[in-house]
């Protein structure tokens, strides 16, 4: 296989060499426990403090507002449970239909435990309707939890407007910013956000580390109970090397924010080239998107087959098709957007990073038309049957 062209950075990213370099001493030489009462452990504690400051800087927050976690999933689980504990009398929760599974499935479980959950819908572009949010809010609403930007389409939610509405009703506001940290500037000091989740491996830190922002003064209850680590807010011996890595990655991400325009330029180049292929369209809000993400629907062909074809050229992307998940149902995000079935199964997400080069983008543009042509040649469906197909597919779905 030829050299890898990695365009799946919303799934995970490469560890920055500088991050690795910063981490290594903490896997070899400095193995002390930061909680220990000797200077061998104490120096590790100092390094953790520095990492905490680096992450706080990226978020525009205070050092004391950062809790290190093991991943985005832990951050989101912790945040949601903490919000419930903060206002135990309130039993209504609001989220959106397009959240990550580590948010959606927590809410599904909470429903079983007696909470009432409102799942806000999105329109064809993946945008929220703030009127719908306003109408759903009550004095009984404990929490509004939304993502900052969608992992599949890159569509950005207007979180400050959402937060303002949540605050009007005294609800906690949690934001899953896993896809945003390092891609958009953040300033939580002047924000309505109470809790914000980020994950290390999406911004060139290693897997197994994340952080949760908890606004100062927020009535926080921990998920993991045990020792006094993280000031009692997340028990368990720290993943020291991971945390150091996250700190360094946060520092680098802050510097890199200035170069995001270059990433966007490459993304736009890719998108323009792919849209030149007939019967393709962009899924998501073109104007209001993460600069690194594009999600394109290729009609009449299936996403997993496209991915395996790309794989032949060493190109890594992902798809919302049912066959990639083994779940038999296509992406809940694209379904929530009401995309027609002719596009749903043939949607491909390309997500770039600061390492992406123009030559890589051009290589994708070189091979993609052939891949699409070949699979369309194999397919029994084509654009001549567009109308008939649409009717037929609607009938199939309504018969279910």
């Amino acid at each position, binding site marked *: 296989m030829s050299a890898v062209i990695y365009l799946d950075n919303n799934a995970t990213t490469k560890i920055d060499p500088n991050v690795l370099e910063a981490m290594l001493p903490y896997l070899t030489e400095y193995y002390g426990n930061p909680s220990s009462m000797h200077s061998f452990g104490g120096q590790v504690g100092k390094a953790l403090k520095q990492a905490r400051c680096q992450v706080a800087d990226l978020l525009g927050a205070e050092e004391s507002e950062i809790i290190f976690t093991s991943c985005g999933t832990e951050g989101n689980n912790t945040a949601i449970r903490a919000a419930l504990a903060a206002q135990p009398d309130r039993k209504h929760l609001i989220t959106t239909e397009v959240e990550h599974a580590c948010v959606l499935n927590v809410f599904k479980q909470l429903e079983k435990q007696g909470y009432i959950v409102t799942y806000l819908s999105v329109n064809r572009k993946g945008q929220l309707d703030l009127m719908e949010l306003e109408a759903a809010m009550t004095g009984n609403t404990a929490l509004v939890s939304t993502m900052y930007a969608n992992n599949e389409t890159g569509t950005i939610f207007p979180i400050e407007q959402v937060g303002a509405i949540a605050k009007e009703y005294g609800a906690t506001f949690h934001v899953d910013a896993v896809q945003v940290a390092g891609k958009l500037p953040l300033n939580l000091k002047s924000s309505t956000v109470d809790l914000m989740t980020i994950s290390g491996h999406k911004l060139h830190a290693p897997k197994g580390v994340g952080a949760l922002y908890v606004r100062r003064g927020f009535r926080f209850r921990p998920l993991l109970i045990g020792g006094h680590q993280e000031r009692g807010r997340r028990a368990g011996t720290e993943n020291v090397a991971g945390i150091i890595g996250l700190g360094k990655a946060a520092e680098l991400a802050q510097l890199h924010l200035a170069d995001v325009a270059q990433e966007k330029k490459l993304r736009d180049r890719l998108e323009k080239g792919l849209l030149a292929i007939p019967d393709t369209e962009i899924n998501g809000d073109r104007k209001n998107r993460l600069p690194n993400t594009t999600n394109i629907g290729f009609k*009449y*062909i*299936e*996403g*997993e*087959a496209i991915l*395996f*074809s790309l*794989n*032949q050229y060493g190109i890594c992307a992902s798809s919302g*098709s*049912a*066959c990639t998940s*083994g*779940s*038999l*149902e*296509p992406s809940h995000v694209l379904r929530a957007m009401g995309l027609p*079935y*002719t596009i749903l*199964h043939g949607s491909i997400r390309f997500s770039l990073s600061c390492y992406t080069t123009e030559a890589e983008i051009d290589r994708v543009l070189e091979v993609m038309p052939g891949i699409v042509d070949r699979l369309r*040649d*194999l*397919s*029994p*469906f084509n654009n001549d049957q567009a109308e008939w*197909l649409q009717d*037929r*597919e609607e009938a*199939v*779905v309504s*018969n*279910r």
Partner: protein
Amino acid sequence: MWDYTEKVLDLFYNPKNQGAIEDPNESGIAVVFGEVGSIACGDALRLHLKIDIDTDKILDARFQTFGCTSAIASSSALTEIIKELTLDEALNVSNRDIAEYLGGLPEEKMHCSVMGQEALEAAIYKYRGIEVEEHEDDDGRLVCSCFGVSENRIRRVVIENNLTAVEQVTSYVKAGGGCSSCAAEIEDLIAAVQQEKALTATRVAAEIATAQERNRPLTTVQKITLIQTVLQEVRPVLLADGGDVELYDVEGDVVKVVLKGACGSCESSTATLKNAIEVRLRERVLPNLVVEAVS
């Protein structure tokens, strides 16, 4: 990433027999296609057959597939398997034959092989003028409403592939793969099928043991009891195809049955008799039994 075999990847990257078949409008040659699936379901297969009307032989088979890597490879494998077969022989091709040809499929992808087998049946039934509706509209109650899967179809796939878990049923026929509210029902069905199977096995074994103990051949009554039990086992498979079977009489080693529904009008009924029923009876009751159809 799916762990596909080399064969699957090879037939995906270099598929054999893709495309449609033009009707040559020659006398003695028929061209027909069968279709299953839809874009909404995530995969669809249109299988084209060129048939020699006199010999019933498949002269050419081609496919058009909307679907994933293994759907395309399964379709291509199917066309390779059935070329040169007679229609009756082709009807005996099971989803397992397709999966085996490919050197195996990930279990979650077994439904790709089932799709191939179903498209083949659809094409042959269409050629033989058996209403597709009649075939699909079996008596079975709908169990999975997300993917429209009936009880009989689930029973069939459980029996034929000896499935023991809901996830397997989902992998084979998609049932339970949507809202999964039917999972408990599928569990019950699996349990029922397994129980019936175990019961038959014990009864057959007991009868044969009794006969051997007495050192005597099976009495006609014993034979009938055993044959009835085995037929009960075969019925769901036929029911799934819109057919049925009933025991008419037993004379010596000759078992006379009545084929009903789609089986009665189906030209492949001889194959069904020999392969589905006779083989099983010989295996389970007596090795010298012969099955005949009476009308």
